[in-house]
């Protein structure tokens, strides 16, 4: 019972930053701007949020400033990638390498091994316990006791779905990605749309980083995003950049990660191999889905994606 609660709680815990990065990344993805820089943007969010919380002494001001910082990063990416028509993948990698180096350089410059803001932020108080629900077994640990940004991330799945499919902006993002010529021919400013798509991604990645660092641990350590940006990219691809489907992949990953960690307790000496589970899980689910799809279609061969 306790174990099950823990598994569910940790599932939400590990899913939230991924969902944010997925939701942010899929705008750019839909607009046909492959953003490999999600990892760097997330790291920037984690780093700058803790840094600014330390400097300002206020959690939400820190998070806000970190969103701004990451937006600047998004602007850099957009400027190079969209205005200057660079190779997105290189630019994204540049962003990743740059942020990683910048954060560790700054730490060195500040003579710190990590940024610890636990004296400013009390993470226990940031958990929102929902009355009544928190006392229901199982459901309680699924729905209650998470942080604000975690809740926001799940609410955003719905919001992003609406924006993507019901509003002009969402339609334009998809149009620009699918057929930029078509967008231009009806006078849609495709550059502006692409910028907006990348910037939304940057902002949400900042939140993901802040969620990971400040909100959960009041702590930044070097390279603490540890590849989550790439997992998010994988989830976006798996879900065909659809908000709900891609988020489900993020949750699947979160669940697998949670299972791997919680069950490792009972795994004996092979617990090390449990770390593979989340990654294999993604591959297997994707394989199953693709195999079913490819069986259905009678059209042969590959199309340019």
């Amino acid at each position, binding site marked *: 019972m306790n174990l099950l609660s823990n598994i569910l709680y940790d599932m939400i815990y590990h899913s939230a930053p991924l969902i944010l990065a997925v939701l942010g990344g899929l705008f750019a993805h839909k607009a046909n701007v492959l953003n490999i820089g999600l990892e760097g943007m997330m790291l920037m969010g984690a780093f700058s949020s803790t840094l600014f919380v330390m400097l300002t002494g206020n959690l939400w001001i820190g998070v806000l400033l970190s969103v701004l910082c990451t937006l600047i990063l998004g602007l850099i990416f957009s400027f190079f990638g969209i205005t200057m028509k660079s190779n997105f993948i290189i630019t994204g990698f540049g962003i990743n390498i740059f942020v990683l180096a910048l954060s560790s350089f700054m730490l060195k410059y500040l003579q710190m091994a990590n940024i610890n803001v636990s004296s400013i932020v009390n993470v226990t108080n940031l958990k929102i316990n929902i009355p009544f629900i928190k006392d229901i077994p199982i459901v309680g640990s699924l729905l209650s006791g998470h942080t604000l940004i975690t809740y926001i991330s799940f609410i955003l799945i719905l919001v992003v779905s609406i924006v993507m499919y019901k509003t*002009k902006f969402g*339609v334009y993002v*998809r149009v620009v990605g*699918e*057929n930029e010529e*078509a967008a231009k021919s*009806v006078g849609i400013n495709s550059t502006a749309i692409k910028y907006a798509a990348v910037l939304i991604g940057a902002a949400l990645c900042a939140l993901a980083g802040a969620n990971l660092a400040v909100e959960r641990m009041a702590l930044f350590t070097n390279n603490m995003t540890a590849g989550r940006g790439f997992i998010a990219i994988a989830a976006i691809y798996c879900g065909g950049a659809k908000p709900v489907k891609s988020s489900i992949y993020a949750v699947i990953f979160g669940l697998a990660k949670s299972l791997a960690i919680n069950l490792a307790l009972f795994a004996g000496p092979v617990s090390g191999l449990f770390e593979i589970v989340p990654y294999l899980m993604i591959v297997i689910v994707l394989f199953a889905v693709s195999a079913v799809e490819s069986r259905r*279609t*009678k059209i*042969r061969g590959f199309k340019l994606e």
Partner: protein
Amino acid sequence: MYAIEAVNLTKKYGDFVANEDINISIVKGEITAIVGENGAGKTTLMNMFFGLQKPSGGELRVQGKEVSFNSSLDAINCGLGMVHQHFKLVPSLTVFENILLGTEIKKDIKISGKLSFKSPIIDRKQEKKTVQKLIDDYKFELNADDIVENISIGAKQRVEILKMLYRNVDILIFDEPTAVLTPQEVDELLVSFKELKKQGKTIILITHKLREVLEVSDKVVVIKRGRVVGSRATKETSAAEIAKMMVGREVILNVNKKEKDACQNKVVYCVKNLCTENNFGKKVLDNISFEIKEGEILGVAGVEGNGQSELVRVLSGLMEATGGSVHLYNRDITNKWPAELRSSGIGIVPEDRYAQGLCKDMTISDNLIAGYHNNEKLCRHGLLLKKEIEDVSDSLIEKYDIRIAERNGNVSQLSGGNAQKIIVAREFDSNPRMLIVSQPTRGVDIGSIEFIHNKILELRDENKAILLVSSELSEIMNLSDRIIVMYKGKIVGEVQGRNADSEKIGLMMAGVSAE
């Protein structure tokens, strides 16, 4: 005052001059037809009118004012609209979303009585209603709800047209709007043109079909190699004269086919009970059976979207058949992949030129050898022989009169007609035993049509078997020895080419059985 006036308008691509000192005045309220060979520079000119290309020189005036468009948005704001030759549609969106793209209708949120404001949410119901009404007004065969990805090319063309008509513009540019429409639809469209003209709109129409020019236009402008070479009032000219101005020589507008009886010849290609389904599980080919003999052209007629595309896909190995069989000289080739079909001697001219027939971003010679690059003449020990490939492509370019600006340029720089000739040259010259030819002259100028038709007949006279699929009924009737008609995935009738009666075929195409 003219609606549009071009003064010495010039467009250069590097050293290549696509438009040179063009002077055209489009009279308000008239229909002006612009004709010319493939690659003459018509589209380029229109793109400058519509702000998609920047002129390299000269002046452009709209409603008497000099303009300099930075994007098509500027042109739209000046009251221009354009239907593009290569569709500018979004495949994953519905028909109505495509038509209303850029002018979406938003939901009103009513807060008690009079107070209401626009929400950011799109009102899809309202959008659909609006578009369905538009479709009904123009009597187009179209469903507002369909996803554009899944509709036929003809339907896509109709969406493009509606997209512009909806915008209520004053000057309408149509770049080959009829290339993929059925004859009935063309007639409908021409009626709409006249209607629009009555409403005071100015129309520029680019087409390769002289019938249309003569029927609706007030004025014809002929462009050749980037220059205006002639301009006539339509009333005072004839198809023969226009064709001559375009091509620079007399053009035989109707092919001249020797009748031949293939009844006694050997069967080359035999299709039996062929079936397949689309992604939604719908049967799109239903028990298709036919034979083709040596020296015979079998024409497949039908309205777009009745299974012809799928038939060609299955026969060319790009789609799986769920049932039935295909034999080539008694050899079972059912569900073989394209590579095996080719090596067994089947040449294929696919329907979608730029998807399956050509690679736009490769050079002309790379495209000319595609699929035949394995030949020992061109490839030894896995290495390609540059010199031989150049020789082969030079000779094909020469033999098939492919007009190229730059020898090592990419196919993307070629006009549609010349691009089509690359496929024709490649497939026809590989000495196939059997040819599958789909929409061979779509969007191709009359000179090239004549050329391609003659080549097809030449192959027939060399005793090849040919399957010809085309939405152009006149093409089918002109070339085929035998015609089968498809409707809803089935063959609904067969007629001999000799005594084909277009009325009767037309009825069969519409689903009215022959008997």
